[in-house]
């Protein structure tokens, strides 16, 4: 084995992740290779330093309120979905009612009726077109079924 091969074992040795046989082989190499032994010493010092660092534990209040923070997001997520669905339904219903009233109303001029109907039809076509495009790309998304 070359020094490069032993370098692969260096981290595992440092972190006590080698089995006895690998450990013995690595220690034998260290005894005969000054360069690897020097590098190992430097890594040991660094590991000691890093092991010494611990992070501040937040106050208990943070852990007690943690689930509340997650739950609020979940609840608001559902809230937004319901709100959006209801808004879409009401807009569609209102739109139909408006068109119905407009057609029935004899006082409104024909030009205004045609103009408003064309505007609504244009919006509907744009909406369907965008929706169809989104569905088309979603179906052809190669990564949509990727599961981790």
């Amino acid at each position: 084995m070359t020094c490069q091969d032993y370098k692969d074992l260096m981290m595992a040795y440092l972190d006590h992740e080698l089995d006895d046989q690998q450990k013995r082989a690595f220690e034998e190499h260290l005894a005969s290779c000054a360069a690897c032994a020097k590098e190992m010493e430097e890594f040991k010092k660094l590991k000691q330093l890093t092991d010494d660092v611990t992070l501040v534990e937040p106050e208990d209040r943070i852990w007690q309120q943690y689930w509340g923070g997650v739950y609020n997001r979940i609840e608001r997520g559902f809230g937004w979905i319901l709100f959006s669905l209801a808004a879409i339904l009401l807009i569609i219903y209102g739109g139909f009612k408006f068109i119905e009233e407009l057609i029935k109303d004899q006082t409104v001029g024909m030009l205004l009726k045609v103009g408003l109907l064309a505007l609504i039809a244009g919006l509907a076509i744009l909406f369907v077109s965008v929706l169809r495009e989104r569905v088309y790309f979603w179906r052809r998304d190669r990564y949509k079924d990727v599961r981790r």
Partner: protein
Amino acid sequence: MDGLCEQETISIRSSGRSSKDAFEAVVKRHMKDAYFIALGLVGNREDALELSQEAFFRAFRNFKQLSSKAKFFPWFYQILRNLCFSHLRRRKVRRASSLEDSEGNTIEADNDDRFDPEMVAERNETKDRLWRAIGQLDYKHREVIILRHFRNLSYDDISKILFCSRGTVTSRLYYARKRLKEILDHEGPHPAGTRKGGRH
């Protein structure tokens, strides 16, 4: 932290309790790991708390994507790390755009300017330097250091969480520590709290 990746193939779907109650138990079980990993990746408390909670929310929303045989934590970790890395990239872009001098030249910023040494327990100069040096590592190297040293995960657990081989974990740790050593050697001791000159 023993066997973080082996614990429970939690199936919220098959739990007798409501999905909310079952998920609450999952959150309470993993919240500390999620918070401390996020803290190690982004370097400050407010962002870590925000991002770890957002990761749980997204996990709940996308729970159907998790196959019933998959372990929860490695899957959840992908959501958490992606959120943290996107956050760091956005922060970098924001900082770069706000650090243009009057002639429009970009002034390079330190990567670690949000790696707050206040997060380190029983602080001293060496620990502060080390924490800031971790903040200067690139994302992939930073995460293996955090998982190994601050969450004390085994190589096998790290490889499961990162969806890579044990060999890749070993090699990433080697280069991460080497880089960390270079940063510390290059800077040398200086008073805690003093800003560093250049980036490496």
